[in-house]
């Protein structure tokens, strides 16, 4: 049975010819896509490099550019996981810096009252913007959160802050999801 007979299409060798022609057309579109993709990338403000770097590596490099000690040095701070009730009382009492590790687009849609946006995604730019407030006292605890339990951004930001010499990071793993589902106050 020929390809054409099997698929109800063109007969005999024609079906392979047509298939080959279609694959060539797809190949041509792919080449045009590749050329335009790389051209678009070159004209971006921040072109994507050809070599992929995992999120952890990217934030580590951002921290190095911000003057953090080498990752090989043993940090003295620690990360403590906290629950909703502790986070709520920290927000109410004030006295700790609250950081939102989500991307700015989500931060702007709503965040925990008083939280500063220091995202994993734009760590270098966000940290630089809030540098004065952050570095005033590195012994003061920092409360940190991101989207929810499955979001690893807060963990990455926490480890980076510890590497940068902050002594205590309180990580609220429940994140924005748990906060809003408990009906807690929001700020925009």
């Amino acid at each position, binding site marked *: 049975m020929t390809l054409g*007979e099997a698929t109800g299409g063109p007969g005999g060798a024609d079906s392979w010819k047509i298939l080959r022609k279609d694959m060539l057309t797809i190949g041509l579109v792919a080449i045009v896509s590749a050329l335009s993709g790389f051209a678009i990338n070159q004209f971006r403000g921040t072109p994507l490099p050809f070599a992929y770097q995992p999120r952890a590596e990217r934030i580590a490099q951002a921290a190095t550019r911000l003057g953090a000690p080498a990752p090989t040095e043993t940090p003295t701070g620690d990360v403590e996981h906290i629950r909703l009730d502790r986070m709520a009382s920290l927000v109410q009492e004030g006295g700790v810096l609250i950081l939102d590790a989500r991307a700015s687009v989500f931060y702007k849609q709503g965040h925990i009252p008083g939280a500063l946006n220091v995202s994993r995604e734009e760590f270098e730019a966000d940290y630089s913007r809030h540098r004065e407030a952050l570095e005033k006292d590195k012994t003061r605890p920092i409360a940190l959160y991101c989207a929810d339990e499955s979001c690893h951004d807060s963990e990455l930001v926490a480890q980076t802050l510890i590497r940068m010499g902050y002594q205590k990071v309180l990580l609220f793993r429940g994140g924005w999801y748990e906060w809003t589902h408990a009906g807690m106050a929001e700020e925009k």
Partner: protein
Amino acid sequence: MKAPPPAWVFLILRCLVGGVFIYAGALKIRDPQAFADSIATFQLLPMAVINPLAIVLPPFEILVGLALMLGWWKRAMSLAVMILLAVFLVALASALARGLQVDCGCFGSGPPSAWKTWYALGRDVLLLGGAWILHRREWRAAGPA
């Protein structure tokens, strides 16, 4: 013998499938780093391929979607859509089977969840069905067996 559906049915189907691909490609082109991170979560490809793929795939989706909507090379473009969707489905199914938390990266990024993965799988199956109907029509129109 049952009469074939009118031509406008296929036009709507082409616009639907093509439109989805244009939209998906446009979202990915806006944030290539996030798309690269999505590809990485599937743990299927070598690191060297991830960023080039994140750069090339979105314009390919847009061009294929546009060609399909405009009726250019309908047979080839519907075949391209079928191939893409088959690859996406295999990747999603593989991620589910391995219990990975992935974000399909299909329509911009957001927190991953198993529900989102199943939803993406279901949506891609529907799109594949649509593309198959389009391709079948053009393939049969190419000539009798």
